[in-house]
Structures are given as structure tokens and as C-alpha cells.
């Protein structure tokens, strides 16, 4: 679990981990965009479960807790602010719709919501892409983001990653692991596209994504 605050500010003490009766106050202690990872995680679980029982106030609390993550992630992938707002809205409505199906046994709410958001953003990128250049091969597509994309990914990772520990852990990866993961995740590329852009065999990229993520998992202490 991350110990550092995303903004580099010290993590506020929120007392005990959020309990059911303290969810509202915990949510209030983390206004939009300033989520403290550890407590936010368990608070998000509880809020999402309550939202699943039709509690709109809990859902509003969940929005306040996670909207910056969702919007930031979607925007990172889509770039376009207007589209990002639209997709963020879709994501939260989907979260509301599916809330009763969230099972804390099978993962935490933050990860559940983030996966949903990322998937939506990627779907949007790919359907837009399919509509405009369905015919083009990946190689022909490379100019879309090749030079900019290459450098920018590195730059984004260097400049915009605010979790110190995440940055340190990313630093422990090989360059190929890091690039494979960040290009796929932040740009919405498939592993075949990443392989093309990195001029690396497809099976290698596929493997590097997996062993890179496993190394990150171990470094970050993300457990079952």
C-alpha cells in the first residue's frame, strides 16, 4: 500500500480505518482530488457497497473520493477534455448501475472503478480510431504518436507521476518493461501496437508487460 500522498503532502491522519458508521466523515476528510490511498481504499469499498443498496449520498461521497482519479486517468488516455468529461460521466453512471455487483472479496473499489474507467477510455479511443482509420496498419498509424508519444510517455512518467513510491518502483523496471506498461496503459495501445512502436517482438512485449507488472506489484506491496 502506498504511504505517500499523491500531492506529496503528508498523509492526514483520519483515525481508524473507515468503519460503516464513519464513512461519511471519512469521505468528508478526503475532499475531491486529495485522496489518501490507504483509508480512501477502505472508505471507497464501504461507500460503493452502500451505493449498491441505492444510497445516493454514499454514491456522492464515492464520486468525491474517486472523481479525480477517474477523470485524470480518462483524460490521460483520451487527451480531449470534453470527451474525457463525457466518459467520466459514463463511468460513474456505470459504477452506480453495477454497484450492487461489487464484491469486496474479489478486489477493492478503487481498483474496480479504475478498471472500468480505463476500459471505457480505451474503448472510446479504439472505436474512434476504428471509425477514422480502420484500414490502416499499425505501422502506418505510428506517426500519430510515435515521436511525440515516445518522448511524451517518458516525460509524463517523469513529470506527472506524483507517487514517489510508484516512481521509485517504476525505476526498478527495465526500460522495456516500463515503456511497454506505460504506453499500453496511458495511451490505450494494444500490446501488438506497443510491439510495433518499440520495434520489439510481440511475445517479448507481452511477457514484459506481465513480468513488469508483477515486479511493480511486489515493489508496491499490492497483495491479495
Amino acid at each position, binding site marked *: 500500500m502506498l504511504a505517500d500522498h*499523491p500531492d506529496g503532502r503528508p498523509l492526514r491522519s483520519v483515525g481508524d480505518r473507515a468503519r460503516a458508521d464513519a464513512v461519511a466523515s471519512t469521505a468528508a476528510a478526503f475532499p475531491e*482530488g486529495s*485522496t489518501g*490511498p490507504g483509508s480512501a481504499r477502505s472508505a471507497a469499498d464501504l461507500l460503493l457497497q452502500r451505493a*449498491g443498496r*441505492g444510497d445516493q449520498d454514499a*454514491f*456522492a461521497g464515492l*464520486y*468525491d473520493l474517486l472523481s*479525480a*482519479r477517474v*477523470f*485524470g*486517468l480518462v*483524460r*490521460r488516455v483520451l487527451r480531449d477534455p470534453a470527451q*474525457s*468529461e463525457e466518459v*467520466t*460521466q459514463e463511468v460513474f*453512471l456505470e459504477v*452506480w*448501475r453495477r*454497484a*450492487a*455487483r461489487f464484491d469486496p472479496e*474479489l*478486489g*477493492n473499489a*478503487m*481498483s474496480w472503478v*479504475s*478498471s472500468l*474507467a*480505463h476500459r471505457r477510455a480505451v474503448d472510446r479511443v479504439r472505436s474512434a480510431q476504428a471509425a477514422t482509420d480502420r484500414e490502416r496498419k499499425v505501422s502506418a498509424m505510428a506517426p500519430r504518436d510515435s515521436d511525440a508519444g515516445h518522448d511524451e510517455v517518458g516525460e509524463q512518467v517523469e513529470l*506527472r*507521476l*506524483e*507517487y514517489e513510491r*510508484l516512481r521509485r518502483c517504476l525505476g526498478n523496471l527495465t526500460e522495456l518493461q516500463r515503456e511497454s*506498461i506505460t504506453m*499500453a*496503459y*496511458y495511451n490505450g*495501445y*494494444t*500490446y*501488438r501496437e506497443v510491439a510495433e512502436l518499440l520495434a520489439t517482438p510481440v*511475445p517479448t512485449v*507481452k*511477457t514484459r*508487460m*506481465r513480468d*513488469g*507488472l508483477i515486479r*511493480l*506489484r511486489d515493489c508496491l506491496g*499490492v497483495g*491479495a
Partner: protein
Amino acid sequence: MTPPDTHTLTGAYALDALDDYDRGNVEQHLADCPVCAEEVEQLRAVAALLGAAAAESPPPSLRAAVLAGVEGTRQLPPRLASRARSSRTRRLYVAAASAAAGLVIAAFGAVAVDQHHQLDQARGQAANLGAFASAMAGTTSHPVTGGGTLAVAAAGDHVFVSARDLPALSAGRVYQLWLTGPAGIRSVGVVDGRAGDVNRLVKTSTSGAVAVKVTAEPAGGSEQPTTPVLASAPLRA
């Protein structure tokens, strides 16, 4: 059956870096491999932390828009705990589903004779079956790539097909149902790409049908599948 190297795709899967075909294979694999599913869960949590690093507050107006949207959005019911049910329970469900399908066939047959008189009854039967099918979905459902589940129950020369929570397709796309068997694959119907839930009774006509499959196709459907199979449900458990 999934390709032998499917397991190594868990990383790319957690990053949403797979095309529909690979994704389908991985999801099929995950359904049979709890260890892999756990790995995916962990790698997704790692990916979520990568996502958190990009955090950026949305414009304040979005909050009101989202909460207003919630006001008018119905929630899905929880999934019924299904894993723990015994195979005996499951057989009972399937047997009962088959019986219910038989009822609907009878009702539909009657409609042909006296449409107006029997229509309400047929609707009632279909509604019962729909309700039944949803109860059954927990035990015999197969994941659909992209979301949702597919469940089937065979009765004589008919198959009842029930799909739930299918994600809305983009405009101009539909879901298409297929029946596969020794004679190949043939279309057994097209479903509105935004229907979400579907209950269909399908005539198998030729014997030896093996499975029901679902693909996404251009509006109007295709002669043969033109996209990767999104879900496959065998007719015999």
C-alpha cells in the same frame, strides 16, 4: 479451449492492451483458472495505482451532472451467489428450464392457432420463463467478452437462449446468435445492439447442435460470423 500461452497475457489483459479476440481467450481461461484470476486482480490493482498517479480534478459542474444522471438510472440487481451451489441444484435448474421452455413452445404453438386469445397467455409464459432464466443464469452462465453473461437450456429441438447485461454496441452494430454443430455454424437470430437483456427461443431443427455462440455484427446480421466470438455456451453441460 484456449491457446497454450494464454496465461502470459494476464499482464496485457490487466492493462486493457488486448484486442477483442485475445481478450475473449483470456476471459475464457480465467473462468477455469482461479490462480490466474487472482493474479489479474492483483495486476489490475497495480494498474489502478498507475491511474491514480494521473489524478486530476474534473470541472465542478460534472458532479451535478453525474448525480442528476444517477437520479434517472436504474441499478442492476446483485449477482446471486452461484459458485457454492451444488451440481445437483444446477441440474435441477436446467431440468426445470427445459420444462419451462417446453411450456413456451406449447404457448407459441397455440398463438399460431388463435393469436388474440392466446397472446396474453404466451406473454405470461414468456415472462415466467424470463424470470426463470435469470434465476438460472447464476449457475449455467458463460461470460461474454466485454461484459454480460450467456446461458442456454436445450429442450427437444429448441434451445432457450438468455443473455444478460450485454453492453450497448455502437450504432449500426447488433448482436447475432449462432448455432454450431457438425454441419457448421448458422445464424439463429439478430439482437438489438442496445437490448441489454435477451431471452430467445431458438429452433435447432437439425440434430447434433453443439453450442450457441454470440458475435457483434453490422446491422442486419451477417451470413457467417465476421468478428471474434464473444461468448459460447455448450448445449450439454
